[in-house]
C-alpha cells in the first residue's frame, strides 16, 4: 500500500472520528478534572483567554443541535491541525 493511500485512509478515519464518533464520547470529567474535583483544587481553574472562541469547548457557537455543533467543531479542528502539521513536517523533512 502506498504512503499516500495510508495517509488518505487515515485522514478519512480522523474526519469520521472527529465529525461523528465525537458525539458519543463520554461527557464525564477526564482524569485531571476528576482528580481536581475530588482532591479539591478545581475551583482554582480560570477561564481560558480563548474561552470566547467560536469553537470553545469543542462546540460551534450558534448551533443548537449538539451533534452538528460538535461535529463541525471536529471537522474544523481536523482540517486546521492538518494544515499546520503537514505544513510543518513538509518544511522540516530531510531533503
Amino acid at each position, binding site marked *: 500500500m502506498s504512503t499516500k493511500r495510508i495517509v488518505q485512509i487515515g485522514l478519512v478515519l*480522523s474526519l469520521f472520528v472527529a465529525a461523528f464518533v465525537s458525539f458519543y464520547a463520554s461527557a*464525564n470529567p477526564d482524569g485531571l478534572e*476528576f482528580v481536581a474535583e475530588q482532591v479539591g*483544587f478545581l475551583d482554582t481553574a480560570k477561564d*481560558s483567554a480563548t474561552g470566547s*472562541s467560536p469553537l470553545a469547548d469543542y462546540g460551534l457557537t450558534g448551533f443548537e443541535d449538539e451533534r452538528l455543533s460538535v461535529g463541525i467543531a471536529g471537522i474544523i*479542528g481536523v482540517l486546521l*491541525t492538518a494544515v*499546520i502539521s503537514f505544513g510543518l513536517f513538509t518544511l522540516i523533512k530531510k531533503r
Partner: protein
Amino acid sequence: MKIPTLHIPDGFISAPVSLLFLVISGFFVFLALRGAKKQLDEKVAPLAGLAAVFIFAMQMINFPVAAGTSGHLIGGALAAILIGPWAGVLAVTVVLIVQALVFADGGLTAIGLNVFIMSVLATLGAWYLFRFFQKIFPKNRIGFLTATAIASYLSVPISALGFTFQFALGGTAAITLDKVLIAMVGVHSVIGIGEAIITVLTISAVLSVRKDLVFGASKLKVSLVR
C-alpha cells in the same frame, strides 16, 4: 453532551512555574525541530502530518473509566513509535497548540505545562521505555507490540507524575501533595489501559500494511514476520 476539557487550565499552577515550564518545553521543542530534521525521511513526512491529525481526532473521544470519570488518548507513545520521538514531540505539540488557541482546551498560560507532560514526558518517556522493552523481548511482532503496549500504558501515569511534580512546585491550592499524587497516578493507571489499546491497534494496523513506515521497527531492524 459536551467534550470535557482535557488539559491543564490556567490557574492550577502559579505563573512563575508556568513560565518556567514554557521555557523548558520551548527548549525541548527546539531540540525536536533539530532532531526531526535528521530523523524524518521524505517518505514518512506525510505520515507525521497524519499522526497529529489522528491524535487530535482521537483526543475528542473520551472513553468512560470507572467511578464517573473518563480518559482520552495522549498519543505521545503512538507518535514516538510511529514517526520517531522528535517528530512525535512536534506532532503532539501541534495538537496542544491548536486545542489551546482554538478550542479553549488547556490554558494559554498553561501551554508550557501541557507540552511538558504530554509532548515531552509522555512521548520521550514512551520512546525510551519502548526501546528498552523492545530489546529484551523476542524480536518478532508479538514482542514488538508487547513493548508498544507497556510503553504506551506507562506513558499515562508518567504524565500524571509530571503534573504532580508541577503541582508540587507551583500548585495554587493548599492541598497536601500525597493526595494529589495518589489520585493522579491512581486514576491515570486505569486510563493508561485505553492508551495502550488504541496505540497497539493503530501500530499493529500500520505494521500489517507497511512495516517499513513504522519508525520503531525500521530503526531496530527487527524481523516482524509472524
